[in-house]
């Protein structure tokens, strides 16, 4: 449509408005945000990376939980870890070494400058660690649950750990680094909103209004030659209607019927990639019967057709999850090939009934009953309003009902659900498991005795209160092993335990919802080239932003 036609129609619309509101008439040239998109220039990019609710507040403090998502496009970590594969890309550090299991040595990259022109030094790195030690509220990566002290040695930063703790290196590597010369002047870094961010990343903040902000390319960026996009435009309002309507280049959103909405809006250019995230699972409460019985848990797993559940929950966008807890296919490299069928547990009603029988439940008529003839009843908890999970749970319910179990679904409000999950106040509860791509963190969070607290106490991991001396020994060994072959071997054993003892019943993979347009820029991550998750927060977007190329033609 032509420019004049559109403004003419808009004038008509304004006139209608004015008539309705019975106010003085006026004709104002109104800018539609669609016009600001990269349609012409191909140097600017319209993104839906950050959602105002409904407007933006100006918070670019990288250590604040309420920060703008794009803060991490300005502040960088030492190493970026692709959580889907565990692959590492050296960033502000050119690499790290672990001379022993209690020490990590990061070599800081030369020639990196802050956006105000000051050089980034090893002192800044040490300062950033010390800052979050002083303010534990800001320690979002949990660095100081591993660290004892940090010191600078020339161009390296040496981290001394509390214990022999090899996996800690990956946690420390993700620490975001801020400039000491600016942050040392800040009175209260916790409530500091950092309205004029000075970072080391590829972008700096340009204009900011509560309705939209823009980031422009940092010309002195240490790998400026890899950054093709000159400007990122981020509007506050990005409902699904806006995303389909306004020609975005990159959006992160769950889109119903994506082929008929997003792709249809521009069939030649619009693509999407919804890779597998952490496994969404049923977590049994293993402090009480019958959930503490591994035969019972196996019966549940065998009774369910997880692909049907996945299709119901996520509209066919994701696949069923492997019972190993790994995110397949991206983590295939560390999968133990001796586990049958890649750890996928197929539905097998006869085998399920056999397992239930071992657990003491037999079929009587249509129902499964225990030895005293009482029918088997279970309650599944899922948060209210998370409609995809609820769809999945409803499918679980109908499949379990078919095999003879009475299932009740309860849906507390999200906050209450979180409390019940953490305090162990459930029979079986929906939850996500793993997802960091780092075997120690993922399996420790699932089975580690470190997180196992009594029922009623607020836990932050191992919500099902799984108990296995074998798993604990393996985790303890994995924690102190620097030998990579040995690490892989232990990881395989942990996969075996997860597969055989079912500390959770894996259902389907949570999706990541990346919508991309090839109109102005190409090189988006995809199933063929899964170099980064499509997510728009945390540090992996830096991989994407340094990977894009202008579209040809």
């Amino acid at each position: 449509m032509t420019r004049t036609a559109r403004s003419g129609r808009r004038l008509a619309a304004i006139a209608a408005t004015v008539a309705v509101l019975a106010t003085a008439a006026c004709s104002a040239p109104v800018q539609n945000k669609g016009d600001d998109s990269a349609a012409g220039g191909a140097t600017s990019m319209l993104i839906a990376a950050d959602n105002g609710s409904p407007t933006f507040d100006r918070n670019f403090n990288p250590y604040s939980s309420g920060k703008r998502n794009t803060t991490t496009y300005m502040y960088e970590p030492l190493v970026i870890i692709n959580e889907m594969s565990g692959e590492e890309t050296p960033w502000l550090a050119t690499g790290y070494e672990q001379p022993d299991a209690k020490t990590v040595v990061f070599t800081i990259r030369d020639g990196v400058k802050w956006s105000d022109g000051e050089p980034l030094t090893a002192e800044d790195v040490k300062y950033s660690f010390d800052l979050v030690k002083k303010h534990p509220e800001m320690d979002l990566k949990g660095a100081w649950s591993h660290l004892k002290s940090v010191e600078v040695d020339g161009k390296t930063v040496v981290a001394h750990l509390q214990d022999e703790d090899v996996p800690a290196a990956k946690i420390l590597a993700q620490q975001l680094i801020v400039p000491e010369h600016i942050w040392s002047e800040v009175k209260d870094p916790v409530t500091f909103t950092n309205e004029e961010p000075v970072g080391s990343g590829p972008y700096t903040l340009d204009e900011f209004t509560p309705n939209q902000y823009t980031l422009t390319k940092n010309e002195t960026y240490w790998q400026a030659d890899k950054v093709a996009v000159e400007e990122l435009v981020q509007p506050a309002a990005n409902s699904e209607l806006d995303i389909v309507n306004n020609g975005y280049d990159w959006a992160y959103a769950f889109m119903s019927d994506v082929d008929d909405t997003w792709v249809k809006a521009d069939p030649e250019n619009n693509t999407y990639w919804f890779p597998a995230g952490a496994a969404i699972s049923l977590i049994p409460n293993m402090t009480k019967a019958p959930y503490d019985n591994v035969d019972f848990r196996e019966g549940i797993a065998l009774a369910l057709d997880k692909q049907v559940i996945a299709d119901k929950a996520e509209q066919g966008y994701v696949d069923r999850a492997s019972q190993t807890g790994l995110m397949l296919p991206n983590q295939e490299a560390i999968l133990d090939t001796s586990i049958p069928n890649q750890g996928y547990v197929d539905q097998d009603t006869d085998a399920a009934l056999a397992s239930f029988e071992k657990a003491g439940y037999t079929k009587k008529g249509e129902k499964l009953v225990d030895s005293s003839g009482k029918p088997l009843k279970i309650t599944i908890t899922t948060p209210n309003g998370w409609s995809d999970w609820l769809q999945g749970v409803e499918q679980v319910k109908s499949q379990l009902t078919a095999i003879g179990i009475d299932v009740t679904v309860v849906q507390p409000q999200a906050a209450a659900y979180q409390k019940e999950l953490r305090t162990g106040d459930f029979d079986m509860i929906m939850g996500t498991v793993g997802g960091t791509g780092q075997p120690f963190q993922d399996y420790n969070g699932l089975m580690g005795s470190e997180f196992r607290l009594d029922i009623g106490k607020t836990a932050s991991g191992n919500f099902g209160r799984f108990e296995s001396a074998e798993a604990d020994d393996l985790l303890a060994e994995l924690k102190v092993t620097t030998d990579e072959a040995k690490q892989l071997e232990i990881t395989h054993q942990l996969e075996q335990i997860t597969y055989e003892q079912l500390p959770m019943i894996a259902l389907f993979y949570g999706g990541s919802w990346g919508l991309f347009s090839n109109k102005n820029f190409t090189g988006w991550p995809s199933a063929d080239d899964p170099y980064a998750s499509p997510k728009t927060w945390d540090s992996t977007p830096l991989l994407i932003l340094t990977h894009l190329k202008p579209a040809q033609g």
Partner: protein
Amino acid sequence: MRYALRKLGLLVLTLWAAVTLNFVIPRLMPGSPADAAIAKLAQNGPVTPSVQAAIEAQLGVPGGSIWDQYVTYLNNVIHLDFGVSYTFFPQQVSELVAGALPWTLIMVGAVTVIAFVLGTLIGIGAAWKRGTWMDSLPTVAGSFLSAFPYFWTALLIVFFLGYVLGWFPTSGAYSATAVPNLSWEFLGDVLYHAALPAITILITSLGGWILGMRNTMINTLGDDYVTFAEANGLRGRTVAIRYAARNAILPNLTGFGMALGGVVGGSLLVEQVFAYPGVGYLLFNAVTNQDFPLMQALFLMITVSVLLANFLVEILYGVLDPRTRR
């Protein structure tokens, strides 16, 4: 005077009750603000134990005994200090409310006044010409339209006028690139963005005013003094406006007072559908995120304005109708 004082005493008592309830109710909700914040993050994927710990440290749990919390709360309410929002940490609640209130007051407030004036006038016309098309058309249309739920009308309007036809923006209070200022250009932009939510509220609330006014007025028209005025040969319009409508408007006026008091609460569903940055949207965010400080400030503001509006209407009633003073 004694009447006004008695009403004032009652106002103070209800205010205290409202303020106290406002303290108690959010605390009865299960789960802590940290739980709510973690649950929100968990929708995007698993939340590592370290993030959970940091969020708990950031948001904390209300400290001290319930009584101490209550005393601190009362003291803060008097000073209009509602603390820091949990959801939009570290923003001040008062700043958030101040940012949202103008949009609601302008959009919802203007529409409420327009709907009242328009509805009442149409109601008068309908009653005066009762039995003709001028009566049946607005009456039928009014009851038809006011039977639609707000959000449904809103969704239809946003889909057809905003998406399919593309005549109006589907979200926001002004264009993304506009900077708020006092110019015709910006004002036009604001009106353009307010159009769809305003039309929605107008459509769904107009019917009530029309029907209310028409029905009371028809009763009044049957009264002897109206017949007397007509028999005296007064002009039709004089009888309709100065005799009948003036008496019939009282119930509508009460409704108007209460509606005005409710304006500060915004229009939750409509603001939600159109992503309009008003109080209703803020309230929705506060409730879904267990944001106690923000919720308390908003509920308090809504309760106080409804109470004040009621108080003013009662005083006005005392002036208009001497019988209520006894």
